[in-house]
Structures are given as C-alpha cells and as structure tokens.
C-alpha cells in the first residue's frame, strides 16, 4: 500500500483486498445502532446526570444536529468508497482517491468508527497501543487492527492537511 498526495486529492494506491475491505467497513462501523455503549460514547452527555434539564434538552435539540453531522460525514465516505467496487478482477489491488475537500468528513467518520469499535470491544489503553498484534487471532484482534489502521490513516490525513496550510 502506498499513500501520496496527488493534486487536490490523497491517493491510496496498491490497496490490497484485505485493507480495502476494512475501508469498506468504515461507514458500517461508524454506526452505533446495535451498541448502546457506542451510542453513549458518540453522543456523550453535556453535563453530569444531576443536570436533568440540560441533559434532556440536549437530547432533543443537539443530538439530532450531531447525528446529521456524523451521517453526512459517513455518507461522503461511503460515496468515495464506491471507487473500490469497480475493480475488474476479484482479488486485484486497487486505488482510492480521497478529494482534499472530503478529508474533514474522512477524519470524522474514521473517528466515529474507531470510538464505536473501541467501546464495543472495550479495548484497554494498553491494547490500543499494541500495534504489533496479529489481526488473525479472533474477531476482537481484527477489530483492534481495524482501529489502529484507521488511526494510521487519520495521522496521514492530518499530516497532509498540516502540510497544506
């Protein structure tokens, strides 16, 4: 896999089918629908539970706005990921082009996915720092690899954005 800046886009080239599949899972992983813990993390309370009025107003007025913001980001990512479905050969490496205008959406969606996965599997800080664990052991290990791969991508996008300003 090779990532580089190409005009007004970031290009991920020679993306192998395994990493391409992990990227295809970003929009789905960013959804917290089946995990109350993930929902709670993505839409965290604005104050302590004793502040009942503020917390209930937040759910009515702010959470829908945040939900729209997060869904808009994942939808942008989903559209970019359609590039990965157009390969002629089933196991061929492919290229993903992320327009610079979409990088904020990617950062947001990757963040949603990482937080939702991490809270669902209850990864410890120690596990999240273990970058050398094989993804092949279990679904949990694969999810940890997924979190770290998304983090790597975020780091690269941020570095490119900083270089851009």
């Amino acid at each position, binding site marked *: 896999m090779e990532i580089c800046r190409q005009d007004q886009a970031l290009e991920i080239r020679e993306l192998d089918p395994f990493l391409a599949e992990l990227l295809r899972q970003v929009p789905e992983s960013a959804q917290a629908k089946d995990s109350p813990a993930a929902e709670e993390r993505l839409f965290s309370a*604005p*104050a*302590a539970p004793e502040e009942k009025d503020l917390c209930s107003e937040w759910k009515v007025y*702010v959470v829908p706005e*945040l939900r729209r913001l997060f869904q808009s980001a994942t939808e942008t990512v989903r559209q970019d990921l359609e590039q990965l479905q157009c390969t002629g050969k089933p196991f061929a490496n492919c290229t993903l082009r992320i327009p610079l205008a979409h990088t904020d959406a990617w950062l947001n969606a990757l*963040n*949603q996915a990482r*937080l939702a996965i991490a809270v669902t599997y209850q990864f410890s800080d120690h596990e999240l720092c273990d970058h050398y664990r094989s993804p092949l052991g279990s679904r949990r290990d694969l999810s940890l690899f997924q979190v770290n791969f998304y983090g790597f991508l975020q780091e690269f996008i941020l570095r490119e954005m900083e270089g851009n300003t």
Partner: protein
Amino acid sequence: MLEVHNNGRSILWSGVRERAELYVQQLHGYLLLATIEKTV
C-alpha cells in the same frame, strides 16, 4: 493538552452558560468528551 494527558481532564473555558453550551456542542462535533459544570 498536557494537563488533559496528565490529569484526564482540563478546564477549557469559563463564562456564560449559553456560550459554554455552544462550545461543548462544537467539541462533541469533533467527538471529544466535554461537559459543562457550574463554577463553585
């Protein structure tokens, strides 16, 4: 940043509640944990 790293939390801003709510909403938009607390 270092205070958050060391202590797990930090006071980012003090002031009127309405503006604090706006700031917290913006931080939540970046998926950062932020809460409002009354000044003692």
